[in-house]
């Protein structure tokens, strides 16, 4: 099959002429766990929002299975935004029903299993949960869909290292072999062992797309160390 996502000449210029994406070209394959890496302000979140149809491109396009972002592609993509968007007065079990209503591919039993593994009560109101626990709940919801593409914007930034390990294990064991996970993060050393590929972006352009093993083989250093070298300030 052809690529899952194609980014073609994609350009986004915000007001006041701030260029966030600059004629970006990128192909995202199926069945991979891919890290989207770049310094602050390099365009990671802009790219992710364009993939999810939350922004309009200034020029170029992003295609998923050959389709522009729309209701159809939203059925295929499970998206974790960088901020939580749930209503604070909701309980966790209400959230599960909410996701059941919204997404045909949502698997409530999977979500309940993960919530119980992380000792999160379904009766808890979201506003009573800590910031990190809220992030865990949101990630559980997103990973409990049978999507073709999981797009996770900074999924582990706010959670403790033990939960981080659990979440990464969940990503490894839960995703189906034809699905792709695209995740942006700064915590490269925590995450590089679970990645197939990494994409480095700078100033709205892709400067490298390669496998983790190839970088280690050819550069003799971890992706984390290589990132620090490439983006040294």
């Amino acid at each position: 099959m052809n690529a899952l996502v194609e980014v073609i000449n994609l350009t986004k210029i915000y007001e006041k002429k701030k260029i966030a994406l600059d004629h970006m070209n990128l192909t995202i394959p199926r069945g991979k766990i891919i890290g989207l890496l770049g310094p602050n302000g390099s365009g990671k979140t802009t790219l992710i929002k364009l993939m999810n149809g939350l922004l309009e491109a200034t020029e170029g396009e992003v295609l998923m299975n050959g389709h522009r972002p729309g209701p159809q592609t939203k059925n295929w993509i499970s998206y974790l935004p960088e901020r939580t968007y749930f209503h604070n007065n909701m309980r966790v079990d209400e959230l599960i029903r909410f996701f059941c209503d919204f997404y045909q591919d949502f698997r409530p039993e999977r979500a309940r299993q993960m919530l119980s593994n992380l000792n999160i009560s379904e009766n808890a109101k979201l506003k009573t949960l800590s910031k990190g626990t809220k992030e865990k709940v949101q990630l559980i919801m997103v990973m409990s869909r049978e999507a073709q593409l999981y797009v996770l914007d900074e999924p582990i930034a706010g959670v403790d290292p033990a939960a981080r390990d659990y979440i990464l294990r969940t990503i490894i064991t839960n995703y189906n072999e034809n699905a792709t996970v695209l995740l942006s993060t700064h915590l490269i050393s925590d995450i590089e062992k679970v990645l197939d590929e990494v994409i480095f972006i700078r100033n709205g352009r892709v400067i490298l797309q390669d496998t983790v093993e190839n970088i280690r083989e050819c550069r003799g250093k971890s992706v984390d160390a290589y990132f620090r070298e490439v983006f040294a300030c």
Partner: protein
Amino acid sequence: MAWNLNSDRPIYAQILDVIQLRIISGRYRPGEKIPSVRDLAAEAGVNPNTMQKALAELERNGLVVTQRTSGRMVTEDMDMIQTTRNKLAREQVSEFIDKMKELGFSKKEVVELFERMGGEDA
């Protein structure tokens, strides 16, 4: 023998070392079934494709064999396990000797020190 995958070497090579050690030390016994790629990947916290690559490499060098029906098993060829064990031992010793050379020890001094310390242990 835990998954300590912190060096800058390719991850599959580090995984391979761990599994090899588990076979040599008898944690995975000859003829025993090896856990599935997914289970091992989850245990080690690595990408399943990377785990797959390490196991394929072990299959290529013969320490692990694939049975069509029952998945991957440790080889029952004891000679092969012994050969691998000796190879790893030689690597360890030559690494050790290199380090001692850096410290300015002659081979004779190394042997003397080794015997003296071995004596203390006994």
